[in-house]
């Protein structure tokens, strides 16, 4: 019977462009959590998340908000004494939880990322007003008003695009994307 792959090994091998992320060498020193500017907002700080991965607590790991709170600042990555790329591990977990369709209830991160990807596939460039739809309606009234006020100020300063930018060779661009993943309709 084939050996079952441990959750830790799965996460170690989630990155395409490296020869694995040495999570198994983590000695629980806590440098990552200490360096993280967002750890106070995470349900499990990075050090504990790695311990949970080592302990194969897969379901609990995927339910944490930890990786959706990672701001990609890489403070943990540059300081880890074991050479673990903690921030890339967070990216890997985001992708993993999106494939599995398992992420915390009400998290804006996954919706935002999906909207972003659709925008890029459509036009080749990013367009702020469309992105705003992925989070705007999750706000309460005061936040909505503040956001609308800021958008108005930016508009008056000529800093908000009225029309989405498009690349010229869009057909080629789409064919290029389809060669990596046959996505079907990108609308």
């Amino acid at each position, binding site marked *: 019977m084939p050996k079952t792959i441990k959750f830790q090994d799965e996460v170690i091998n989630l990155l395409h462009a490296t020869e694995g992320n040495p999570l198994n060498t983590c000695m629980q020193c806590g440098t990552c959590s200490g360096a993280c500017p967002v750890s106070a*907002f995470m349900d499990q700080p990075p050090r504990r998340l790695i311990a949970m991965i080592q302990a194969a607590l897969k379901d609990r790991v995927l339910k944490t908000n930890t990786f959706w*709170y990672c701001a990609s600042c890489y403070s943990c990555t540059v300081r880890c004494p074991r050479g673990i790329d903690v921030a890339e591990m967070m990216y890997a977990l985001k992708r993993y939880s999106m494939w599995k369709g398992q992420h915390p209830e009400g998290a804006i991160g996954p919706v935002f990322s999906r909207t972003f990807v659709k925008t890029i596939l459509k036009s080749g460039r990013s367009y702020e007003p469309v992105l705003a739809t992925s989070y705007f309606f999750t706000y309460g009234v005061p936040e909505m008003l503040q956001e609308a006020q800021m958008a108005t100020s*930016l508009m008056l300063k000529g*800093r908000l695009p009225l029309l989405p930018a498009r690349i010229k060779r869009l057909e080629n*661009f789409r064919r290029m994307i389809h060669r990596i993943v046959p996505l079907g309709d990108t609308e």
Partner: protein
Amino acid sequence: MKQYAYFPGCSLEKMAQSYHSSTLETARALDLELKEIDDWNCCGATAYFHVDELLAYTLCARNLAMAEQDHLELVTPCSGCYKNMYFANAHLKHDADLADHINYALEADNLKFAGTGVVKHLIEVFVNDVGLPAIKAKVTHPLTGLRVAPYYGCQILRPRKDHEDVEQPRFFEDLMTALGATAVDFPLKLRCCGGSLILTNREAALSMVRNLLQSAVKAGADVIATACPLCQVNLECYQKQVNREFNTDFSVPVLYFTQLIGTAFGIPPKRLGIGSELVEAKPVLRCESRTPSNPAERSGSHA
């Protein structure tokens, strides 16, 4: 005149137009030719990498291949674009299978990634390729008395690209000093602004912005200098919301380093996009006529 393949990135098209115009103005003054990559596409930002790594590398590779075609080093003023394209370039060079796979996709746009390119951030080009002596030589309107908090943010330095100092860098301070400004000691100069969390996890991001503003103001900064469009938006445009959330009264202008260089070169503010900020910068930039707002505090900080 040295030529570069210029990748502005999506933010510079509109939200950070002032970064774009001040980049072009100061580059011209320094005898650099920034040739915009024809038909460049989004680098994938952080969000694309959340969904699919391979596709995100493909997006970067298309831009890299176009720069290679022109035999030019790629330069970008955006820290996020820089990090993505720097590492896409490095990974694709290192991993022939990955490059093969992506080259099959690039064929659809008649492009090929050969791995001959170099990716640089604009501030790196100014500091290393042009050099501070050459920049200093062009200063006609020194920013004497202007107290600048140089904000590095994250992705220019992290993850580490080569052997650069990621804990105690000095080049941003040195650049500001070359312009005649005073670089204040800004303890949180390497701390994250929250990045795209401002959209997805607002509470966390606003508190991160608050901490940075507090640190800069405590250091006595008149202005924060940045080299990233997202840092600029977070630190500047969200000041009002930070003030409301934390009952503070921050009002610190946040300018791109290119706008400060341009000002020191005597380029008119309008051509540098100065005036498009939500926190007005013109009052603090009138350096000659500016007097310390609180002389006692100022002399105290020098003691």
